[in-house]
C-alpha cells in the first residue's frame, strides 16, 4: 500500500512498472528503485550473505552494503538500492541455493565457529596436498553473483570531459548553496549529486527549516535556483568515484529515460572543489544487527517519505542522534506504530522532538540500546538494554530502526591526500588541513542545523571562487561571521558497540565480519585497522567500506585502550562507489590508423591485423605461411603497402649536426642521390631504430624510421639536442606520404611501364635515390632497397595519390602476374635474408654490436657526440653479451614459435623469428643467445610453450640464409 499523497514523494504512483522476480511479477511505480519496488511487493530477504548465507534485507537506500546486491538482467552484483526499476527487468537473488527465503546453504550460519578471522589463511594449508582441493572448494563458494563466460554487456555507455571553475560534490543544501555562491560570481560550476534529484538530507524531511517552510520545501527551492542558473551544470544520479591531482574529479552518471546513455563516465577538471557529501549513518553494533527488518534511520524515513512505503508495522528505534527522533515522530504520524524509542544518549536531545514523541505517547528511553534482534529470517522481537547492560526489556516488532550516529563521507577529501584525525567532539574523522583549492561544507563538518549547513556551503562556495581569482574576501568574511553565529558542530555519540559478546554483531555486512572476528584478529597481533581490514577482509566488499569504515577503527581503538591506541581510519581508495567496467570503457572507440591503401588492400582479400597503432594487411590468403606470396616475390614481382614507415623532413642550418647526434654513422657522408642506412641508439648503446637518410638539398634531409618509432622520433631529436640551441626543424611526414614496395626480379619491368626515365641498374643502382614525376602529376621519391632480398623499389608518394599510383602499378604489372604481399610474407622474406626488425630481433638490452651492426658505427666522425657511443665503447670489450645468430631446426618442417626459449639447464637465449622457409625448404630463424653459444654448429635446445617437456633441437648456422652475396637485390 503506497502513501500516494505525500508532498515529498519522488515516485509517480500513476505510472507503473513491472519486474520479474522469483517467478512472479512485481509491480512498482515510476521512480522506484529495484529494491523499493521489491519491498513494495513484500520482498524482505534480498539475498544471502557471503560466508554464512544469512538472510539479508534492506538496510540503507544508498547501496552502502551488499545486502541488496542482486543479479539484474544477467548482470551480477547490481546495487538494487541505486538502480532504477525498469519495465521488464529480470531480478534474481544472489548467493542462494534454492531461493533467498529458503536457502539450502543456510546451515553455514551454524558453522560460523569453524570460520574464525582469516581462517583461509591459517587452515586448509596443512597437509599441503589438501590445498588444491580446498582451493577449488573455496573458489566455488567465494564471491557473490555469477556471470556467464559468454555474457555480452548490453547498454549504451558514453563519457564526457567537462571543465569547470568550481566542482561541487554533493547536491544537498550545502552543495547547492556553495554552487550558487560560486556561480553568483560568474564562474562555471558543476554540481554532482549521487541521487537522482537534488536536496540531500532536506529532500525528504518535513521538519521545520525556518518559521515558514519545511526542510523539503527549502530543498526544492534551492534546487530550482540551482537548475535555473545558466552557469551551473547539474549532474544528478552521478556518483563521485575519484579525486586526483590538480582537482581532476571523476564520476559516473546513470542516465534517465530521456538520456542517450545508460551510464556515462564523467571526468571533470576544476580549478577548485567543494566537497559537500554529507553523512551516512554509523551502524549500531548489536547481535543480529543485519537481520532483515533492521534498517537505518534514513532508510526507514526515506522509504516512507520518498517512496511512499511504510517500512514496517511496529517499530522500535535504537538511535543516537536527533534524526532518529525526527524519523520516529514522522513515521508515527504516517501510521507506523512506534513501540519504543531507545536513545543511546543520556542527554542532549532536541526538546521539541522529545515533546513531539511525548505528545504521541511514544515510550522514550535515555541511555538504552538494542542488544539483540530476534527472529529467524525477519525481525520479530528486539531486546533493549541500558548501555551498561544491567537492565533489559523486550519488544515485539517487525522493524528495528537502528543507528549509532553519523559518519561523514570524507572519501573525496582523503583521495586528495587530506589527513584525517579523530575528533573527540563529533566522534568523526575530520581533515586536519584541506588540500589546496579544496573545501568542505555541510553536515560532513559536524553541523546539523539547517541554517548552519547552508552557511557553511556559502562560505565554501566563496572560498572556491577566490581560488579562481575572484575577490570574495569581504563576502567570505561576512559568511564566516554568519556561520559563527549559528550552531556549530554537534556532539556525537561515542558508543561503539552494544554490551554484547559480538558473536553475531556484524561490523561488515559484505564480508560477514563480526565484532568477534575483529577481536580475534587483534588478539593475533593485527593491531591496526589497515591490517585488521586485510586479515578479516572487513570493508573490502562492494560497499567500499561504507558500513565498517567508521566502526572498525573505533572498535579497534576501544579494544586496545590499554595500549593507548587512538582511532585511525583506513584509507579510502578509488572507486568510492562501484560501477560497471563498461561505464569506464565508455564508447570505447578503437582509434587505429589506416593506410591510404586500406580499402584497396581489403578489396584484394587482405587479412588485417592491428600492428601497433596501424591496421595492416598481414596476409592475402588463408594460408598463413604465405607460401604463394613469398614465392611470387622470389620469382616474379609483388607489391607491399609500406605506408606505415616513419618519414621525416629535417631542415635548417644545423640539420646535419642533429643527424650526427642521433645516428651512429657519419651522416656527412649522405650524398645527394644516395641512400645512407644507419641506426640510432639510446644512451646505453642499445639500438632503438634504424632507417635510411637521404640528402635532398643543402641543409635539407629526408629520412625514414621504423613504423614503431615514428611517433617518438621528433621528440627524440629534440630531447637529445635540447641544450645545443641548434637551428633545425623536423616535420613528420609519416602520414603525408604513402609507400609502395615493389619487389622481385620483374620489379624493374613493371616500374619502367609507369616511369619515363632510365631505371637500369647503371642509371638507378642499388642504394640510390631518385625523384620522378609520374604522368607529370604524381611526385614520387624512389629508393633502391633490398629489405626482402630481391630487386626492390620503395616508392614514396603523397598519400592522396596513393590509390592512383597503386592502380597504375597493378595494371602495369598485370602481364607479369603481379600480386600483393602482406606483412607476414615480408617478414618471412626478410628473415630468409637475415635482415633484422628492431623490436623483433632486439629487445631493450640489445645493443648495436649484439646485432652485428657494429659496421654502422663511425668511430671517427667529429663535430658532435653521438647518443650511445660512450656505452658502445664499453660494450665492445664485454664478451658476455648476447649475440644474434642464425639457427636451423633439425626438423625441417617444424619452426619454433617466436619468443621460444633457448635452454640447457637454464635460459640461455630466445628465438626472435623462425619460420619454415618456403624458398629454402627448411625451418630457419634468428635467435639471441649467450655469446658462448654463438659459434657455428653449436647445438641448441629450444623450449616452447606447452611443449610438455619435449624440447626442439637446432644448430647455429651462418647468416644470411638466402643469397648470401646479395646479388639479387643488386641485379
Amino acid at each position, binding site marked *: 500500500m503506497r502513501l500516494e499523497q505525500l508532498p515529498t514523494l519522488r515516485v509517480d504512483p500513476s505510472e507503473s512498472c513491472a519486474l520479474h522476480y522469483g517467478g512472479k511479477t512485481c509491480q512498482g511505480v515510476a521512480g522506484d528503485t529495484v529494491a523499493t519496488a521489491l519491498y513494495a511487493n513484500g520482498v524482505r530477504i534480498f539475498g544471502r550473505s557471503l560466508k554464512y548465507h544469512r538472510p539479508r534485507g534492506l538496510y540503507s537506500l544508498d547501496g552502502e552494503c551488499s545486502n541488496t546486491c542482486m543479479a539484474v538482467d544477467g548482470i551480477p552484483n547490481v546495487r538494487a538500492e541505486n538502480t532504477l526499476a525498469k519495465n521488464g527487468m529480470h531480478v534474481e537473488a544472489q548467493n542462494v541455493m534454492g531461493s533467498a527465503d529458503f536457502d539450502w546453504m543456510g546451515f553455514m550460519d551454524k558453522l560460523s565457529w569453524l570460520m574464525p578471522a582469516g581462517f583461509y589463511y591459517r587452515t586448509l594449508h596443512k597437509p599441503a596436498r589438501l590445498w588444491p582441493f580446498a582451493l577449488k572448494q573455496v573458489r566455488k563458494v567465494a564471491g557473490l553473483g555469477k556471470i556467464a563466460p559468454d555474457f555480452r554487456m548490453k547498454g549504451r555507455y558514453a563519457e564526457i570531459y567537462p571543465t569547470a571553475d568550481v566542482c561541487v560534490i554533493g547536491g544537498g543544501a550545502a552543495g547547492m548553496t556553495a554552487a550558487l555562491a560560486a556561480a553568483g560570481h560568474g564562474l562555471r560550476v558543476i554540481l554532482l549529486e549521487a541521487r537522482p534529484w537534488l536536496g540531500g538530507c532536506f529532500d525528504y524531511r518535513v521538519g521545520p527549516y525556518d518559521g515558514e517552510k519545511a526542510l523539503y520545501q527549502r530543498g526544492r527551492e534551492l534546487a530550482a535556483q540551482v537548475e535555473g542558473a545558466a552557469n551551473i551544470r547539474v549532474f544528478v544520479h552521478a556518483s563521485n568515484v575519484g579525486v586526483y591531482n590538480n582537482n581532476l574529479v571523476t564520476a559516473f552518471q546513470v542516465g534517465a529515460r530521456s538520456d542517450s546513455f545508460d551510464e556515462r563516465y564523467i571526468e571533470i577538471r576544476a580549478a577548485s572543489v567543494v566537497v559537500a557529501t554529507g553523512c551516512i549513518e554509523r551502524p549500531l553494533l548489536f547481535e543480529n544487527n543485519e537481520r532483515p527488518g533492521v534498517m537505518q534511520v534514513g532508510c526507514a524515513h526515506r522509504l516512507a517519505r520518498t517512496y511512499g512505503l511504510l517500512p514496517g508495522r511496529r517499530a522500535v528505534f535504537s538511535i543516537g542522534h536527533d534524526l532518529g527522533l525526527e524519523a520516529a515522530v514522522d513515521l508515527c504520524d504516517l501510521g507506523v506504530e512506534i513501540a519504543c524509542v531507545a536513545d543511546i544518549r543520556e542527554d542532549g536531545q532536541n526538546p521539541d522532538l522529545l515533546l513531539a514523541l511525548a505528545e504521541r505517547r511514544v515510550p522514550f528511553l535515555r541511555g538504552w540500546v538494542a542488544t539483540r534482534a530476534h527472529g529467524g529470517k525477519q525481525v520479530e522481537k528486539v531486546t533493549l538494554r541500558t548501555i551498561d547492560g544491567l537492565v533489559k526489556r523486550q519488544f515485539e516488532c517487525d522493524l528495528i530502526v537502528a543507528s549509532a550516529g553519523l559518519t561523514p563521507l570524507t572519501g573525496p577529501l582523503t583521495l586528495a591526500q587530506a589527513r584525517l584525525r579523530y575528533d573527540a567532539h563529533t566522534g568523526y574523522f575530520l581533515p586536519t588541513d584541506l588540500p589546496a583549492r579544496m573545501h568542505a561544507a555541510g553536515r560532513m563538518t559536524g553541523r546539523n542545523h539547517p541554517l548552519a549547513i547552508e552557511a557553511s556551503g556559502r562560505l565554501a562556495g566563496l572560498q572556491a571562487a577566490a581560488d579562481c581569482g575572484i575577490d570574495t574576501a569581504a563576502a567570505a568574511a561576512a559568511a564566516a561571521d554568519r556561520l559563527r553565529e549559528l550552531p556549530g558542530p554537534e556532539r556525537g555519540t561515542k558508543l561503539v558497540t552494544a554490551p554484547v559478546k559480538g558473536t553475531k554483531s556484524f561490523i561488515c555486512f559484505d564480508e560477514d565480519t563480526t565484532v568477534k572476528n575483529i577481536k580475534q584478529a587483534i588478539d593475533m597481533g593485527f593491531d591496526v585497522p589497515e591490517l585488521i581490514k586485510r586479515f578479516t577482509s572487513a570493508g573490502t566488499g562492494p560497499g567500499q567500506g561504507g558500513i565498517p569504515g567508521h566502526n572498525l577503527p573505533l572498535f579497534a581503538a576501544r579494544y586496545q585502550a590499554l595500549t593507548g591506541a587512538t582511532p585511525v581510519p583506513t584509507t579510502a581508495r578509488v572507486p568510492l562507489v562501484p560501477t560497471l567496467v563498461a561505464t569506464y570503457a565508455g564508447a570505447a572507440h578503437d582509434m587505429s590508423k589506416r593506410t591510404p591503401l586500406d580499402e584497396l588492400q581489403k578489396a584484394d582479400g587482405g587479412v588485417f591485423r592491428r600492428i601497433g597503432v596501424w591496421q595492416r594487411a598481414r596476409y592475402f590468403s588463408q594460408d598463413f605461411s604465405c607460401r604463394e606470396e613469398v614465392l611470387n616475390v622470389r620469382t616474379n614481382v609483388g607489391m607491399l603497402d609500406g605506408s606505415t614507415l616513419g618519414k621525416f623532413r629535417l631542415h635548417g642550418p644545423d640539420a646535419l649536426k642533429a643527424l650526427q647526434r642521433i645516428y651512429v654513422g657519419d651522416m656527412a657522408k649522405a650524398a645527394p642521390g644516395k641512400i645512407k642506412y644507419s641506426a640510432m641508439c639510446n644512451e646505453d648503446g642499445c639500438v632503438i631504430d634504424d632507417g635510411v637518410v637521404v640528402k635532398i638539398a643543402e*641543409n635539407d634531409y629526408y629520412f625514414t624510421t621504423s613504423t614503431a618509432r615514428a611517433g617518438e622520433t621528433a621528440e627524440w631529436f629534440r630531447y637529445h639536442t635540447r641544450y645545443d640551441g641548434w637551428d633545425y626543424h623536423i616535420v613528420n611526414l609519416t602520414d603525408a606520404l604513402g609507400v609502395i614496395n615493389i619487389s622481385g626480379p620483374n620489379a624493374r619491368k613493371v616500374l619502367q611501364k609507369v616511369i619515363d626515365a632510365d631505371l637500369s641498374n647503371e642509371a638507378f643502382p642499388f642504394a640510390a635515390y631518385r625523384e620522378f614525376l609520374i*604522368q607529370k602529376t604524381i611526385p614520387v621519391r624512389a629508393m633502391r632497397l633490398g629489405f626482402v632480398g630481391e630487386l626492390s623499389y620503395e616508392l614514396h608518394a603523397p598519400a592522396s595519390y596513393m590509390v592512383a599510383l597503386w592502380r597504375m602499378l597493378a595494371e602495369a604489372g598485370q602481364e607479369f602476374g603481379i600480386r600483393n604481399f602482406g606483412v607476414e610474407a615480408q617478414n618471412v622474406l626478410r628473415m630468409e635474408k637475415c635482415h633484422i626488425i628492431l623490436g623483433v630481433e632486439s629487445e631493450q638490452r640489445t645493443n648495436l654490436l649484439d646485432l652485428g651492426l657494429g659496421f654502422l658505427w663511425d668511430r671517427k666522425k667529429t663535430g658532435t657526440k653521438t647518443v650511445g657511443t660512450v656505452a658502445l665503447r664499453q660494450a665492445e670489450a664485454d664478451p658476455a653479451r648476447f649475440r644474434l645468430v642464425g639457427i636451423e631446426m633439425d626438423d625441417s618442417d617444424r619452426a619454433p614459435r617466436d619468443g621460444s626459449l633457448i635452454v640447457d639447464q637454464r635460459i640461455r637465449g630466445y628465438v626472435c623469428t623462425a619460420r619454415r622457409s618456403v624458398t629454402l625448404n627448411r625451418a630457419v630463424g634468428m635467435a639471441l643467445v649467450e655469446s658462448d653459444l654463438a659459434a657455428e654448429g653449436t647445438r641448441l635446445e629450444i623450449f616452447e610453450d606447452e611443449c610438455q617437456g619435449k624440447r626442439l633441437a637446432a644448430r647455429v648456422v651462418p647468416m644470411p640464409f638466402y643469397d648470401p652475396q646479395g646479388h639479387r637485390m643488386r641485379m
Partner: protein
Amino acid sequence: MRSKTMPIERRSPVQFHSEIKKSEVRDRWTVVLAYADEGRGPFLVDLSHASRWDLQDRNIAQMTPLGKQVPESPGQCLFQDGVLVNRMNRTQAAIWHLFGTAPELPAEPGYTDVTDATVCLALFGPNALAVVEKLCALDFLDPGKQPPFLLQGPFSHVPCQLVLMEKGRGFDGGLLLACSRGYAASMLHALLGAGAEFGLTPAGEKRFNDWLGKPEPVKARPARKRKGEK
C-alpha cells in the same frame, strides 16, 4: 616504355556514406559541395582537400606568410581572407587555406606542404561543442578565450590541432580539427558516434563556406528568370 595514361585523382581519407547532391573536381580532389540530407546540424565537413602548410623558423614571429602576420603567442590564431594561421609553438606555425585553391608553396626552406599529412574536419552548428566534450578534455568553453584560438592535445585519444572558430550560446559553436591522416576512419567513427544523439550529419563544403562567411564569387550576369518565376 610507359603504360597508357590513367586518370589520376587525389583521394580524401574521409568517406561519408551519404548521398552526394553536388560535387566538383578541384585540383584532382573530388570536393563534395552538398549532401542530399544534411539535417539541421550540427554538421561535419571534410576539408582534407584544403591546402595546409607547415612553417618552421627560428624567427617565425617576423615572418609574414601570404602577407599575414604570424600570431605572437602559441595558441593564438589569425583568420583572414580564408587563411588561418595557427601559432603552434616557439618556432612553428600552421597555415590552412580554408577557401578555394592555395597559391604555390613559397620557396623559402621553412615551408612544407603537409596537406596529405592530416585529415582536416570542421565540426560546427548547434551542440557542436557538446559533441566535442564527449571526446576531449580540452576546454573550448573557457570564457577567457576568444575564438579563433588553437588547442593542441588528445581528441578521442589522438593528438590533434583544434581551432575553435566560433563560440555561441551554450554548446553551439564550431571548430576545425586536424589529426594524422591515418586516423581519419577512426576519428569519423568516434565523431559520428558521439554526435548521433545531437543529430550530427555529414555536410558539404558549401555549408562550411556559409558558416565561415566565404564571399560568394561575383557573377557576371544575373541569372535570367524563367517563365512563371517571381
